[in-house]
């Protein structure tokens, strides 16, 4: 019996060691070269979508498996920290209408029946949420730095997921965002734009799923008042 206890203790010890190694590997092995660094920046990254900035319109292309969809994505930040995102076809037919609340909840206002699949809406809303950066103020980010450069990564923990925002020294807006699960990269988003002129485009690509989303900003020529 004592031998059996010892054997169990050893197994538990080994399990804990593996768990600790595994947990540690989770956080940094996905980002080789980066290491936690003392808080040199006090300002957290800022979303490209500012409250009360009016709506932004994007020409949107979605490639899911072998299927291609295109349409217009409208992003309307409200005066608080919520966002309304509506996806339409070019001819005006509404595909989905989602509201991203400050507490990270997503309220579905409308989804066209043909695409009303829980997993699809969950994935799309997760991707949109990553680029909107909504609900980030709920957690304090950890700051990672790279030994070769001055760019900083802000890591936000959200349950099993981690959101990473890459920010260069010259700006407070991210040029890349990544979401990881425990052991794998899930999705990455690249932001293109300039602080002065705002966002130009966003490219989102999944690592484990054949899904990519591209958003190209449309500069509207006029507003019509009726």
């Amino acid at each position: 019996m004592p031998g059996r206890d010892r054997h169990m203790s050893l197994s538990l010890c080994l399990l804990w060691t593996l768990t600790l190694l595994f947990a540690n590997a989770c956080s940094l092995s996905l980002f080789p070269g980066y290491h936690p660094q003392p808080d040199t920046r006090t300002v957290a990254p800022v979303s490209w979508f500012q409250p009360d900035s009016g709506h932004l319109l994007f020409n949107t292309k979605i490639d899911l498996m072998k299927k291609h969809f295109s349409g217009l994505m409208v992003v309307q930040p409200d005066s608080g920290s919520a966002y309304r995102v509506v996806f339409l076809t070019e001819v005006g037919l509404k595909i989905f209408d989602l509201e991203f609340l400050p507490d990270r909840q997503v309220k579905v206002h409308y989804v066209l029946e043909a695409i009303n699949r829980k997993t699809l809406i969950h994935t799309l809303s997760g991707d949109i949420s990553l680029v909107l950066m909504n609900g980030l103020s709920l957690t304090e980010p950890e700051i990672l730095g790279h030994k070769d450069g001055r760019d900083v990564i802000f890591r936000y923990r959200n349950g099993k997921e981690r959101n990473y925002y890459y920010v260069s020294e010259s700006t407070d807006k991210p040029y890349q965002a990544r979401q990881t699960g425990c052991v794998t990269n899930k999705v990455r988003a690249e932001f293109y734009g300039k602080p002065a002129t705002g966002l130009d485009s966003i490219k989102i690509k999944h690592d484990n799923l054949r899904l990519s989303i591209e958003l190209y900003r449309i500069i509207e020529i006029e507003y019509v008042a009726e």
Partner: protein
Amino acid sequence: MTIKLRLIMPLACALFFLKVPAQVPDTPMKDIAGFKEKLVTMSSRVNTIESDFVQVKNLSVLANKITSRGNFCYRKENNIRWEYLQPYRYLIIISNGKIFIKEDKSQKQYDIQSNKMFQEMNKFISGCIQGDILKNDKEFRVEYFEDDKNYFVSLVPHAEKMREMLNEVQIWFSRNDLTVSRITMIEAGGDYTKIEFTNKKLNTDIPLEKFSFK
């Protein structure tokens, strides 16, 4: 008098600020059969239509509407070219039972019969041009109105599933030439898409190449 004003003013203010797609004629059409007959005659005489259009998308969540402009061509039988030029480019051609879609860099071609949505889209667009949509009382409740400039037709889908997507389609026919001058598609929540046709030219020579998939 004061009491009346107190009652009327808030109502008047509410009506003034109420956002509705546009004022719609509410006088019931006197001669529906005559209107339909004129529409059939017009349809038989018109071989081509060319027009510019302005599409306004109103979403209740947005302070401003989304406006796009483009060009529309129709040539008998069933050749339709619908092209957005501003602020984005997008082209749809329906011809010979096929639908062709061209975006910025990519283009695709489909058989209309392969997709129910394309079938409905084709039926709807050509139905509006040729007036066939008014005969479709199986799918829509059709109501007729008029004012001094337009004939106005309201189509409300019978099917509840369809109404979840599209609550009502309003079509304005110009009294002058019986062509469609405006289409408004109202969604269940009140959001709507209004398409206004301007610079209409009838029976001009539109080459078939305009409807070829290149």
